[in-house]
């Protein structure tokens, strides 16, 4: 256990507890555990470990990523993940070359289907990965999105 991280964690936890007891965080159900360590991970391996407890993701043809080949506005890149799988626990969107690769992590409740669409920022041309957690295992698919600077092809 890294002592510094641990201390930071307890301090942050304390602040939240104070805020909660003061009634500042009204919709308390919203305050679920935001996976901080996964979002702060600086590489894919650490992010996957934080999400799924393993850094091994099996490549799966059942996961389809719909994203532009070339993104002209890198601050708004539409990513859609469509997975033909059952019993999905979560869908994560990872942008490999972003400073913190994990962009979003979606948890599916009962009845939710393997589909999600959102918009993300991309620092530069990079693979976009969709990682699905189902039955305690991770499955993934990748697609490269080119980011043009200045909007002149590239």
């Amino acid at each position, binding site marked *: 256990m890294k002592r510094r991280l641990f201390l930071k964690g307890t301090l942050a936890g304390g602040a*939240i507890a104070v*805020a909660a007891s003061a009634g*500042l*965080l*009204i*919709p308390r*159900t*919203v*305050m*679920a555990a*935001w*996976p901080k360590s996964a*979002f702060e991970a600086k590489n894919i391996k650490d992010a996957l470990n934080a999400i799924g407890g393993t850094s091994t993701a099996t490549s799966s043809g059942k996961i389809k990523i719909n994203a532009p080949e070339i993104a002209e506005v890198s*601050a*708004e*890149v*539409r990513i*859609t993940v469509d997975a033909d799988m059952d019993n999905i626990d979560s869908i994560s969107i990872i*942008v490999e070359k*972003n*400073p*913190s690769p*994990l*962009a*979003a*992590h*979606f*948890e*599916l*409740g*009962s*009845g*939710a*289907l393997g*589909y*999600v*669409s*959102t*918009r*993300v*920022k*991309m620092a530069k041309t990079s693979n976009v990965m969709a990682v699905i957690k189902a039955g305690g295992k991770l499955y993934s698919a990748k697609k490269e999105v080119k980011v043009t600077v200045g909007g002149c092809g590239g």
Partner: protein
Amino acid sequence: MAKGILIRSKASGGVTLVRSSMKHKMETGQRKNKKTGKKIPAHFIQVAKFEHNGKVVFTANLGPAVSKNPYVSFKFKGGNKGDTIKVSWVDNKGKSASGEDKIR
């Protein structure tokens, strides 16, 4: 309907498609103020919960890499015209908001 939240749901063939956008600047914490050279602190939505008639069907955990005014769309089995779909978000500064609409 809370200001800045748009949520639309449509049921068709036993599946409901929910589309939503939430007004938020989604500051990454990496940009610098050009005048002062200081980093602008991160400010972003962390969790957005979606409920169907009071039951959570989908939870979006967002990082600062999600675009400004986050757009989130998902599908779930079930849901009928007139059912309530509600979204509630909370950001990294503890601010929150919610909005709801009926399935069409």
